[in-house]
């Protein structure tokens, strides 16, 4: 399988406190990878390093076999898109304006969007299901709709890998499912890879190909969802008791009372 990102012994610290303590990771084309772990396990930091927003303090990070710090930022932006956990909009832009910003890496410093950029942006909004919101201001729509707007912006970037930090936090069950289906569709149709941090251990089984389980800045376990969703592993990582049940070949995870 073609590897896009390959990281060895990645370490990172904020003000002396070590957040990532030697992570080895490899991301292949067309895979949906979930990053799980308790709060503070280092999920967000790992994602920011993978998309080049933060530089690792030590270790190697190769992007298509080139060290990421030598990859031009704009070139990288055409291939990797990132949606953070806390969304900022700064000013009341319209939804369409935000989605069009996903085209920025393709547009020169003194150029405006071309017709093709508009087409891509509109297509991205349709894909995500927010085309009807395009003229609304981001300050006037709901938190979930803002999340979908950011997602559409990331889709409009036409990346080969999307890095999403809890993409479904503010979404209700229906929208959550739709987002996961959308990611799966992007994977199937365009061979996009997705790396998503999530707390939702229940949806993991249906949509994710691989799971990386972080604990205290290290990889505690990795593998397919079936390999990860085991009572002893989840109990160790989340520090609460869970029951994992199998019924008709499906796995259910329940908190133990």
């Amino acid at each position, binding site marked *: 399988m073609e590897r896009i990102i390959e990281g060895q012994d990645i370490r990172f610290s904020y003000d002396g406190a070590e957040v990532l303590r030697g992570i080895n990771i490899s991301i292949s084309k067309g895979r949906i990878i979930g990053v799980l772990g308790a709060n503070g396990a280092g999920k967000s930091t790992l994602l*920011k390093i993978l*998309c*080049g*927003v933060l530089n690792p303090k030590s270790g190697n990070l190769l992007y298509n076999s080139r060290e990421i710090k030598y990859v031009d*930022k*704009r070139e*990288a*932006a055409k291939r*990797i*898109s*990132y*949606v*953070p956990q*806390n*969304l*900022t*909009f*700064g*000013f*009341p*832009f*319209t939804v369409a*304006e*935000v989605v069009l*910003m*996903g085209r*920025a*890496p393709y*547009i020169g*410093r*003194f150029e*405006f*969007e071309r017709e093709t950029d*508009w087409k891509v942006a509109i297509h991205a909004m349709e894909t995500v299901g927010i085309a009807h919101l395009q003229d609304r201001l981001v300050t006037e729509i709901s938190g979930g709709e803002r999340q979908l707007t950011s997602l559409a*912006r990331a889709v409009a*970037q036409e990346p080969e890998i999307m890095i999403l930090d809890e993409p479904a936090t503010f979404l209700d069950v229906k929208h959550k499912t739709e987002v996961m289906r959308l990611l799966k569709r992007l994977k199937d149709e365009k061979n996009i890879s997705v790396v998503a941090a999530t707390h939702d251990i229940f949806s993991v089984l249906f949509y994710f190909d691989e799971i990386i389980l972080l604990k205290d800045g290290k990889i505690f376990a990795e593998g397919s969802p079936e390999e990860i969703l085991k009572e002893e592993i989840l109990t160790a990582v989340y520090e609460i008791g869970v029951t994992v049940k199998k019924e008709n070949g499906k796995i259910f995870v329940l908190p133990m009372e």
Partner: protein
Amino acid sequence: MKAKKKLVTSLGILFLLWIIVAVVSVFTGTYEMNPFKAIFSGDEMLRTIYFQVRIPRVLMAAVAGGTLAISGAALQALFRNPLAAPFTLGISGGASLGAIIAIRLGLGETVLGFSSITIFSFIFSIFTILFVYSVSKVHGVVATGRLLLAGVVTNFLYSALILFIQFFSDFIQSLQTIRWIMGSLDIVELGTVWKTLIFAIPGCLILLSITKDMNLFALGDDVASSLGVNVGIMEKKIYFATSLAVSAVISVTGPIGFVGLIIPHLLRMILGVDNRIILPCSFLLGASFLTAADTISRTIFTPIEIPVGIVTASCGGVFFLWLLMRMKKEIIV
């Protein structure tokens, strides 16, 4: 409307507006209301008033208003906050203190061909931006409360220092300083306009070259970075360019307040928030606004001229309060 078409249309309309305001201003004043007489009669006195007093003054008003407005828009993008402006952040105060120190030290008129007053203004401006920005930005987010407080406190500090310097000045110097602090355009000749432009043009051009990055920056430091913006460099360009532009103007005119707050805000209400449109349009509307305000300040109490700073600050103060009340939806911490 697509962004490009919107920009071109707005620039056209605003340029026309400026031409009208400038023409009206040139022919309005304490002396002689008849334009034709000024141009075609052989009256030397009239010609002098028009070509050596009024036209430079209108040009200076345009340069100063445009530069302050565009700097305000850029600072708002940097702070992600519509209340940021040269005046509210204490940058004007810093520039004033720098200028007054240079004047009082009696430094030579020029250093390497640049006015030493402007250079001192610039140093104090850039220091103020760096200080206020680092104080008000916590964990990558600018808190409105911290921003306003930092600006207010810096302004207090600079006022105190300016008063301190004044205290040791003689009566005439003191009077000059007070007159200058009010902000006015009445000491302008054509040479002054050029001297201002030497700094103001590069400042404005740098800001205009990064308007696209400013839009992406609105989505947060991390997203901007992931979209290809070098956030650190963009921030430094804004510090440098706004300091340059603001100090160029203020070292000549004194602190003229609130242009940088009102103009970008008015434009955003009509044109939306795209910085690629807001920045260039701010320059033109700022130019018209200050020219109009100056015309009012020259004529409202004829034959007495009041400093234009009083007119802009009184409009701006009320506007600022109104803006603050409208922002009630946002959390002010």
